[in-house]
């Protein structure tokens, strides 16, 4: 069973942040189809500060590190994404509080906590065409991989595939939360921007994973 050190957490967070900054335009375009086209812009304005302040974050334990990242996200990202992503990181930080090492099960627990936080914060459920529709399949895939005794690299690869499939499947859904919900049935036919971002970030994590 693989363990997640602070270094591994840093790698994951940095990959998420870099992807948000590099794919700003692509994420905006995804949001423009039925949303208001600012999703990439909002994410990038927060995650570029995460990268900029990277060395200054306290790293006494994994939870503290994630909490510092969560604060930057909450403070700097506007729109729907600020509270959603900020809450997600904060809840994950809570699970990792005081920990120096994390088992695969802990990683799943952190993701589940993040998902619950998102649900409480935004009132959305799976099927409402939000990033939850990609995150929940990722959590399921990681849990299954842990149960199967897969190593980290294998687990991440399955998770990335699950995220991509699930994100693309949101095309068939009608949005019921967020700005896209005003489009009603007009939102059917294009994938959710948030879910696609989750898939692309997981693919980047998978691509950079040590041992690939």
């Amino acid at each position: 069973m693989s363990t997640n050190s602070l270094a591994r957490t840093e790698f994951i967070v940095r990959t998420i942040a870099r992807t948000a900054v590099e794919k700003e335009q692509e994420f905006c375009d995804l949001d423009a189809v039925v949303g208001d086209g600012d999703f990439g812009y909002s994410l990038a304005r927060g995650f570029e500060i995460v990268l900029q302040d990277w060395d200054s974050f306290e790293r006494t334990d994994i939870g503290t590190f994630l909490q510092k990242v969560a604060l930057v996200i909450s403070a700097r990202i506007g729109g729907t994404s600020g509270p959603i992503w900020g809450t997600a990181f904060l809840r994950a930080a809570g699970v990792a509080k005081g920990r120096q090492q994390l088992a695969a099960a802990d990683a799943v627990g952190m993701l589940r906590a993040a998902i619950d936080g998102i649900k409480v914060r935004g009132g959305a459920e799976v099927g409402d065409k939000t990033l939850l529709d990609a995150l929940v399949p990722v959590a399921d895939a990681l849990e299954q991989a842990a149960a199967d005794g897969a190593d980290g690299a294998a687990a991440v690869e399955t998770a990335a595939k699950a995220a991509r499939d699930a994100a693309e499947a949101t095309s068939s859904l009608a949005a019921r939360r967020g700005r896209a919900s005003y489009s009603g049935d007009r939102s059917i036919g294009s994938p959710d921007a948030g879910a696609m971002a989750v898939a692309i970030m997981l693919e980047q994590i998978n691509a950079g994973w040590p041992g690939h």
Partner: protein
Amino acid sequence: MKKFVNDPKDFVPEMLKGIALANPDTLAYVPEFNLIMRKDAPREDKVTIIQGSGSGHEPAHVMTVGRGMLDGACPGDVFAAPPAHYVYETAKTLASPKGVLLLVNNYTGDKMAFEMAQELAEADGINVRTLFINDDVAVEDSTFTVGRRGVAGNFFVMKAVGAAAEAGADLDELVRIGQKVNSRTRTMGAALTACTPPAKGSPLFELGADEIEMGVGIHGEPGRRRAPLATANEIIDELLESVVRDLPFAAGDRVALMINGLGGTPVSELYVLYGRAHEQLAAREITVGRSYVGEYCTSLDMAGASVTLVQLDDEIEELLAAPAEIAARVF
């Protein structure tokens, strides 16, 4: 993109700096959290009123800070709710012993940011109440949607609670008044063109040369239907019919009537719409007690307009008539 813009990332801060420079005696600017505030806020004898929401709706809300309206506005970037942190810092900076009232247009992002800010501020011992505004009749309310949007009608809530707060009303009273005004206010708009956010650099949605969007949201969200381009009278008649039916407004009612420009429509056209709406209301025996024609809540450079009706009573009419001094003035 044909706009007066430098680096799009600086668009909102540069606008806010301009507002502060143009109103040196009355307004202050706190760049750290996009805050435009009254210089004399917070005041011990007055509940503090704060509104946030995304930018791109000017004069709402940064240009409606001043005596008789808001104490502060802390907008997010264009069409993006402010980070919760901005709202929290604003509430702390402007906290009054009489409490803080947060006015929030009912959108997912704004709602979450203001709820988080309220939690944080309450943890600091600040007395905070939040009021949601949702006057847009274009969106059907149901458990499967996020509910109706707050659009140009938010002006009336701001104006009424602003006047009451100036007169010394306490927080409970302001919540009562705000809820009453909101419950009697209905709006619907139509877009003739799409708007172009500076950071995007191209129109937010596609609208054919002969198409309009009936019931458009103030961020360019789709409304009830795409319709063929029609005359001024046909468009205003449909908007007015939707608004009147919704409350419903009825013969004998006395109302405030607002024709709000969405940013790219000249005021001459707004008065054409106003004249027709006024006459149509008269035909229904609805009396216009107060008239509002101009830009109150825009959608960047979108050509279009919305119509708002408020069912007046003596209390509301008096609050709307009270003086106010804000940056959105002409002399």
